[in-house]
């Protein structure tokens, strides 16, 4: 059932955010610490658990993947409600601090991504991309796991 997939996603999100709040409280921070990240890990664990027991039905999968496919539209809506006026009229101190940290961090990404060996991107990763990109029919998808599925 589709709603079970949506409910699974909702439950993982709620538990993750709650644990993030608790973690923030324990650390004495007035913020949620990694709630969404914890929720993501819970959902990954739930998927593995369900698929190992053969209980990952198409309905459940569709319920989750629908929302993954809504990711880009939601991000576009998020962009449309940013306080761009404040960003543009921030003045030199804002501009220098933001640009400086951006350039430095981009440089650090370039350095870190060169550490270690570069693997070809797995087929399962490509497949995930097409679902998040909202392109393929999510109900018809299966996660390919065999190493033969890797391409160069």
């Amino acid at each position, binding site marked *: 059932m589709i709603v079970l997939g949506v409910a699974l996603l909702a439950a993982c999100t709620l538990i993750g955010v709650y644990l993030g709040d608790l973690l923030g409280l324990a650390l004495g921070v007035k913020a949620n610490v*990694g709630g969404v990240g914890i929720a993501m890990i819970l959902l990954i664990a739930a998927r593995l658990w369900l698929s190992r027991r053969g209980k990952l039905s198409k309905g459940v999968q569709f319920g989750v993947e629908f929302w993954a496919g809504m*990711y880009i539209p939601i991000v576009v*809506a*998020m962009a449309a*409600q940013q306080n*761009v006026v404040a960003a543009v009229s921030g003045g030199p101190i804002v*501009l220098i601090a933001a640009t400086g940290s951006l350039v430095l961090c981009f440089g*650090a990404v370039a350095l870190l*991504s060169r550490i270690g060996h570069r693997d070809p991107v797995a087929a399962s990763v490509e497949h995930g991309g*097409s679902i998040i990109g909202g392109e393929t029919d999510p109900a018809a998808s299966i996660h390919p796991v065999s190493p033969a599925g890797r391409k160069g």
Partner: protein
Amino acid sequence: MGLEIWHGIEHVFVEQSLVAAFAVVGALILVSNLAAKRFTNGRVHGSAIAIVLGLVLAYVGGLYTGGKKGLADIPALAGIGLMGGAMLRDFAIVATAFEVDVIEARRAGLLGVLALALGTILPFIVGTLTAVAFGYHDAVSITTIGAGAITYIVGPVTGAAIGADSTVMALSIATGVTKAVMVMVGTPLVARLIGLDNPRSAMAYGGLMGTVSGVAGGLAATDPKLVPYGALTATFHTGIGCLVGPSILFLTVRALVG
């Protein structure tokens, strides 16, 4: 008569705000995809154009209403605020985790932690140096502006905790927002240059850039397959920033400037 029809349409948009937002955003993406195909021959992602278009509309909306929430401050488009708000954004981000290749994610775990540390320290140093260069001498103001360069949530949380004044807080938030907007627009432009094309580098990127909205937008505009990996590390970034900002970072700055 024409005015009445217009009012009727506006009424429907106000009443069905979320549904209207789905239709408006869908139309925006449709136009962007066509533009990407026709004018750039598919070299630029349709989603990159849609995000930039969204930012431009947010600017126009902000000028028009004088509010802080871009298009969402226009009553007929208030649904954009719900659709792109933190609740559905986080819900969709969590959903992308369903596509994560566990082996890839686990292999890049340590890299993600390193990126998180650098992603907190590097922007903070740049922010504090800029603040000093512009004549701020007290540890509270310097730390608050530096924290704003981490993300626009870390800035005000840190500022509030150490008692910064409201002008410095506004500056700190503006720095974070500017950074987020620049990450959204800049990422697809530099993606190839910085090697952002695989899950490993996406996890490093998420930890370094931090700002969830910036990373969410930047990766969506670059390559959707990288989204869950970048988001996985980025969502820890703000929490860590809020943890070290008013504590370790503030104490360090205070020890240095006296």
